[in-house]
């Protein structure tokens, strides 16, 4: 799994960008929680072989949720979600789903250790990593998609192995295999590259600016802001 803090930061950025008038402390918390949620499959890996980046990192869960949400809010005559939580509930549900998929699952796909995208129909960890550039000598060069990629998967991306062969180390399960391994060294990664530190800092700054705890005392400012926001 990608560093949990990175998932949370990306979730917070999406929440700020997409919630609109539904933006407040509770809804942001829901979206961030949804972004962190996929990492829970690391806990399942303590009993199920190779559950990390597999059980909750596939395309089926988001697809099913999109289908359910679309059916409830757009197709069915009475939306249970809207009746219970109103317009804000519907908006928050969609953004939380975006957080789960784009901030929770996707970051694992675009770098090691990869995500088991089509599980359980197929068992292969995919990683989309490479380069895409235009060169005046060589034309378009790209190595993200390769039709001749070796490995167990059917999708044209690099594949790292199956749940049997590719084990993913997390702080919950250091060797990635089903046993508790109580004595082994655990590493909780906060950020593991410079760009991740930048994303986390951007998210912290964005959220701080949106909530403006230092401007609460001056009433009027916030009321005016929420009025312009709602008028969209």
């Amino acid at each position: 799994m990608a560093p949990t803090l990175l998932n949370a930061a990306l979730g917070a950025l999406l929440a700020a960008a997409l919630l609109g008038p539904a933006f407040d402390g509770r809804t942001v918390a829901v979206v961030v929680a949804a972004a962190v949620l996929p990492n829970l499959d690391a806990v399942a890996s303590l009993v199920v072989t190779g559950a990390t980046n597999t059980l909750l990192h596939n395309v089926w869960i988001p697809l099913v949720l999109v289908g359910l949400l679309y059916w409830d809010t757009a197709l069915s005559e009475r939306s249970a979600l809207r009746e219970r939580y109103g317009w804000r509930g519907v908006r928050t549900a969609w953004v939380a789903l975006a957080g789960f998929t784009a901030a929770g699952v996707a970051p694992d796909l675009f770098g090691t250790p990869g995500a088991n995208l089509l599980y359980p129909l197929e068992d292969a960890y995919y990683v989309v990593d490479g380069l895409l550039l235009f060169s005046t000598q060589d034309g378009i060069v790209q190595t993200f998609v390769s039709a001749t990629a070796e490995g167990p998967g059917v999708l044209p991306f690099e594949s790292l192995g199956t749940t049997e062969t590719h084990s993913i180390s997390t702080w919950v399960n250091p060797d990635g295999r089903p046993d508790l391994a109580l004595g082994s060294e655990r590493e909780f990664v906060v950020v593991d590259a410079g760009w991740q530190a930048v994303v986390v800092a951007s998210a912290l700054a964005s959220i701080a600016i949106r909530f403006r705890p230092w401007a609460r005392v001056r009433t009027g400012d916030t009321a005016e802001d929420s009025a312009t926001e709602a008028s969209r």
Partner: protein
Amino acid sequence: MVSSIVHAGFALVLAAGLLKGSYDRRALAVVLAVVLLPEADSFLGPIMSGAHRTVGHNFVFPAAAAFLIYYDTRIREESAIRERVADRGVRIAWVALFVHLFAHVSLDWAHLDGVNVLWPLHDSFFRLEGELLWSSADGLVQTFVDIDLNPETGDRRVDAGSTGTTQSVHVNNPVEPDDPETLEGAETIDRRFPVAGRGWRLYLLGLGVFTVVARRLQSDPPAESAE
């Protein structure tokens, strides 16, 4: 450079989160223009050594700009920005500055030889690279800043990822795709315009596109939520 397209993608995510009621096509165009502008320092490369990642990529000019906007809108009695483009323009100016700082300079700081952080006050490129983790065996480990302690003299040497000065560092870009001296002798020049050099850059680009498309598809809030 991290490709301008990747900067633009991350910039869109940040701008969508901060523009609030000012979010529209024109505001996004302003933000994107501010993201692209600093790359113009590539064109200074042929006349000034190490200009790329220096003139347009530092933290001194943004700090100066922040002070100017603050002075103009809060301290002066009549604000020139507000007079010309109203409160909306002030917000867009702040967002553009934020995006320049985080989506452009900071991302480049974490890429190749980094950026010339304190230019023109101090000429030194720095690169932000490392990791931060907590290990049950070693405790908190961070490799962003190296601190060496010389055991004999007791001298402390702090290295925050320094990579050199404008004289020694050249960051390749389409205008000068290699070190200027190598380029003079080269027969054919291969100019490379990157779109995404790694998976995570493609991801940030995709996230920006996703954000803008999602904003378009969103339904408008019903009238009663305006209260």
